[in-house]
């Protein structure tokens, strides 16, 4: 029974954190929408029936906006013509299930609070991200339009290529850690390293000088493998481009979006789907490259030791766990904010531009990075190098 309660607690806590992050994404989108005064696209919700103005409903309170949306749904129901409702609904549910399973693999508070700990967690992420990119495409297949179906095939093609690229981009991480378990990537990042240590070794110093030792960096993969981190940002951003592409800034579908956003439930699903995928990719990036729930230069367990001298061990463990959760959420929100600012700062790329960048830049760079990491590993680990 205790196992069941613990499982319920972990699942509820993780859901609460995911909802906080999704709320933060929605808040950023609304702020950008208000700041830029973006106009709605042709495929936006039917304002003539639901109200006037682009920024409807004109309330600054999220609860009021939610109630207004719900009341619209009650008084005005809609159904998409020429579409299979079962397939549309199935696609939405499949997409949610896949993304929630991928979220369960994220160790948001270290080892003890992970919802799902698998030996091949990294491989599972690749598979789930692929399925999560392809599942919403069935919304387009549900429409009896050849253009929608061709669009789905086109987007599935892209998703498959990007997923295969993700394997090559993450291969250097596997080479470094010799493991596929997600916790094995998150746990060692709590330490720190001296990036210019090799300078002292080259000049024959027997120990690292205090100056070089003071320039220590956290042992995060974003510092130890910066090119892998940069390539991962690009590939995860491509995977996060949803087929039912809801654009939070213009409050409507992007021109290439699949599914009818004029339908209230489809619109709500597309919003949640897009934001959940954004949160998932940000959480994966924080776990793999930003030290997960660890603070730089400081072991969180010291807080537990300090607290345990005043109160019991149980309270100290709870304080440590909550601190780790807080650190993870702060990192997640920081990544989401930087991502939103970066996304708004650049024009959305066309598909032919994406393909060109994928084929001519990211694939060769991913290969070069893999060869570089493999070569450096053998060079630094060989006994002749003396490092």
């Amino acid at each position: 029974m205790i196992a069941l309660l613990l499982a319920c607690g972990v699942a509820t806590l993780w859901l609460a954190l995911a909802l906080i992050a999704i709320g933060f994404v929605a808040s950023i989108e609304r702020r950008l929408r208000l700041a830029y005064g973006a106009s709605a696209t042709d495929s936006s919700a039917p304002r003539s029936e639901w109200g006037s103005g682009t920024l409807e409903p004109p309330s600054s309170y999220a609860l009021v906006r939610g109630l207004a949306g719900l009341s619209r749904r009650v008084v005005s129901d809609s159904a998409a013509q020429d579409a299979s409702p079962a397939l549309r609904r199935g696609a939405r549910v499949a997409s949610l299930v896949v993304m929630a399973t991928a979220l369960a693999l994220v160790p948001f508070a270290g080892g003890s609070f992970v919802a799902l700990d698998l030996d091949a967690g990294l491989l599972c992420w690749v598979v789930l991200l692929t399925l999560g990119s392809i599942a919403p495409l069935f919304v387009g297949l549900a429409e009896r339009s050849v253009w929608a179906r061709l669009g789905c095939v086109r987007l599935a093609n892209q998703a498959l290529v990007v997923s295969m690229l993700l394997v090559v981009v993450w291969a250097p991480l596997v080479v470094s850690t010799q493991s596929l378990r997600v916790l094995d990537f998150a746990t060692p990042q709590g330490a720190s390293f001296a990036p210019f240590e090799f300078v002292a070794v080259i000049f024959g110093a027997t120990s690292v000088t205090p100056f070089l030792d003071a320039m220590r960096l956290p042992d995060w993969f974003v510092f130890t493998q910066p090119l892998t981190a940069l390539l991962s940002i690009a590939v995860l951003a491509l995977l996060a481009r949803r087929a039912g592409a809801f654009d939070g800034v213009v409050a409507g579908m992007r021109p290439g979006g699949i599914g009818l956003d004029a339908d209230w439930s489809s619109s709500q699903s597309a919003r949640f789907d897009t934001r959940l995928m954004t949160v998932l990719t940000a959480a994966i990036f924080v776990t793999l490259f930003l030290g997960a729930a660890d603070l730089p230069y400081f072991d969180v367990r010291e807080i537990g030791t300090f607290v345990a001298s005043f109160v019991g061990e149980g309270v100290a463990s709870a304080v440590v766990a909550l601190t780790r959760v807080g650190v993870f959420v702060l990192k997640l929100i920081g990544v989401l904010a930087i991502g939103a600012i970066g996304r708004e700062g650049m024009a959305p790329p066309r598909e032919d531009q994406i393909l060109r960048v994928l084929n001519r830049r990211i694939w060769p760079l991913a290969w070069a990075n893999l060869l570089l990491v493999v070569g450096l590993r053998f060079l630094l680990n060989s006994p002749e190098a003396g490092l």
Partner: protein
Amino acid sequence: MLAEALSAFLAESLSASSSALLLVGLVVVVVAMPSLVASILRRGLPDRRRAVRPLASQLHTGSPRARRSPRQAVSMHRSLIAAPFFLGLGLLLTCFAAALDAVGIQGTLVAIALVSPALLVVLHGRRRSDES
């Protein structure tokens, strides 16, 4: 007694993935809840207000460049064909790195010693077949 047995059975049957299953279920419930509440409330409306509004299909348009030229489709097809080969090579290299890490850097010398004669035979055979 029965309650204890039931709770023990539940605790045993719930594996480590129970948190994940609960999380998935909670996410689906959270998303489905507004639609469910709205449909329940709609049952209380008069019949004339419960009419379902039909929606026309959305137009799907890609980039203008894609509509003008088949070049994008060609490059997309090429990338789809090439990606599995690159993926296979990447996986092979990763396995190679793991194996070499286990046997040590001296393993390359043994590998070269094993591969070189085979390569020599293959190249020689290719040359002979060209002559014939």
